[in-house]
């Protein structure tokens, strides 16, 4: 287990710049999510750390070793792929033991470590099965066991949960987090699922167009996005129209900044509340979704969204004129 350090890495594919002077550190034993829309370079960054391709410029360190010129076979990493990439011609045990056999681990030791890794992912009974005889979630676990059985320095996950259905995905998230804690391995996780990134990781790095936009703990990135892209990408953001700014209490001077509010920070009332920021609008739609409900409110021609527990949203009668109130400290200021 080791820290991973990426410094000033640039990677081009022909004319397109996939990574543009990226610098980012992953601390030892942390669970780090790389998040971004497709084409943002997150997978390229992961594969560059893994060593599947080499960066044109920049340095990559895994632990105390400079690896930018080391090919993937020699980097001592564990990797999990989107479609699991289990070897169909081998049993579960042979899949897990592949990396051990490559490293010429003694047979008894190999058996012990395979059993240990399968026990860790709770698949001890499946050792002799073929991958084709397993369910999606079980294949996932085998892939994880295979990636960690060699005690790699870093575990790299390339959208490993995106092929699972939702309930299974949540189970696997919990499982993944538990196993990562248990063995304390530095983990870098690529995803385009914001919720997954927020749930799983200690730190999040947000990428856009081959650049790192923001790095920080999930709560910080969610509550204090640095720009409009991050604010809109990690959850919804309601943008405050300029005409209202003078009437609001803002966390900082307005010059060069835009201001936004998260949908769940809003409360809806027929009056403006004391000590709160507020804008006036018209309720156009209320969508009931069990415990929660979503309201769409038109504010100066913009669509605002409010999310709250259904029972906390008052019934609005008449023409739907409402005030949306929120605490001044919930106003997010981002670079315009």
């Amino acid at each position, binding site marked *: 287990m080791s820290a991973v350090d990426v410094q000033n890495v640039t990677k081009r594919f022909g004319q397109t710049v996939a990574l543009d002077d990226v610098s980012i550190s992953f601390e030892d034993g942390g669970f780090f999510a790389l998040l971004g829309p497709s084409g943002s370079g997150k997978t390229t960054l992961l594969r560059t750390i893994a060593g*599947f391709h080499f960066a044109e410029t920049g340095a990559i360190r895994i632990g105390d070793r400079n690896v930018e010129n080391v090919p*993937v*076979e020699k980097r001592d990493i564990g990797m999990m*792929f989107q479609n699991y*990439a289990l*070897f169909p*011609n081998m049993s579960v045990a042979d899949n897990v033991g592949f990396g051990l056999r*490559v490293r010429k681990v003694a047979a008894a030791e190999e058996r012990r470590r395979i059993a240990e890794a399968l026990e860790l992912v709770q698949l001890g009974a499946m050792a002799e099965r073929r991958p084709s005889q397993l369910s999606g979630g079980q294949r996932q676990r085998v892939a994880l066991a295979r990636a960690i059985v*060699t005690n790699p320095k870093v575990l790299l996950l390339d959208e490993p949960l995106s092929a699972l259905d939702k309930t299974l995905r949540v189970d696997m998230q919990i499982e993944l987090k538990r196993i990562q804690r248990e063995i304390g391995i530095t983990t870098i996780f690529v995803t385009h699922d914001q919720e997954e990134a927020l749930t799983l990781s200690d730190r999040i790095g947000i990428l856009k167009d081959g650049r790192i936009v923001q790095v920080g703990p999930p709560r910080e990135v969610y509550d204090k996005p640095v720009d409009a892209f991050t604010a809109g990408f990690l959850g919804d953001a309601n943008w405050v129209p300029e005409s209202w700014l003078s009437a609001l209490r803002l966390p900082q001077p307005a010059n060069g900044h835009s201001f936004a509010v998260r949908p769940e920070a809003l409360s809806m009332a027929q009056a403006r509340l004391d000590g709160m920021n507020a804008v006036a609008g018209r309720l156009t739609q209320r969508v009931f979704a069990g415990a929660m409900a979503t309201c769409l409110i038109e504010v100066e021609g913009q669509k605002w969204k409010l999310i709250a527990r259904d029972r906390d949203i008052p019934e609005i009668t008449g023409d739907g004129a409402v005030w949306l109130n929120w605490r001044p400290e919930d106003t997010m200021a981002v670079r315009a």
Partner: protein
Amino acid sequence: MTELTASADRRRLFALLSPAYLWLTLAVFLPLSAMLFFSFLTDLPQDNPDWSATFDNYARFLTNPTYAILMWKSVKLGLMVTLGCVLIGYPCALVLARTIKGRARETLFLLVILPFWSNSLVRIFSWAIVLRGNGMLEHALNWLLPFELRLELMFTTHAVVIGLIHSYLPYVILTSYLALQAIDDDLVDAARSMGASKLTILRRILLPLSLPGLLAGAVLVFVPVVGSFMEPRILGGRMGTYYGTLIEDQFVSVYNWPLGAALSFTLLAVVLLILACASPILGKART
């Protein structure tokens, strides 16, 4: 009710399949059964009205050792050519499927299947020009090398093997290529991430997963080569007497169709026997 639809389904299925069966009957079953019939006759009915039924044609294969010797020679030739095609074709397919990308791959693929587009006689005679004494190959080698070299390739078993490998190589390349190309790139990436060398990846992942394709190609080469007659006759000269040329002689020169037919069916039986014996090994390799 369900029975009714089932029988209706069956009738419709039969109606849809009948053209294919009709074609198979006309093109394969009838000629083959005619040949099987001839193989049990003393003479062709249209040539000699005194024809009668006999097992003599098959008995001759057992009594005259020449036939069995030639059969063994042909089987050996088949094994040699198949081995040559596998050793040359599989690496070609490997490079084509796993390393070359885009336009270059299409161009090379075209070059691979080019032999299929040329007439086989033209192809064989071209080889004769290249291989014969004082031919193109010797000229080229003597121009390159400082000393005089005589290969004496023409009219040898080597010439036959070279010609046959050239003719049948595309089968192995095509079937192996298709099998190799279907292997997910992520499998190779996963193996690399676990520290596997190129050789380990070939041995433990690419080869096992593409073996069905390679074996299909080997069978496609072996079966026709055992019965081949054109390449042995033209490139082998005096050395070129094989079981295939023996059968051809019965039909073309000796005009003993019943014996030719009997020899053909014996060959068919032997080839099927070989494949049947090999099938447990082939089946095992598949899992």
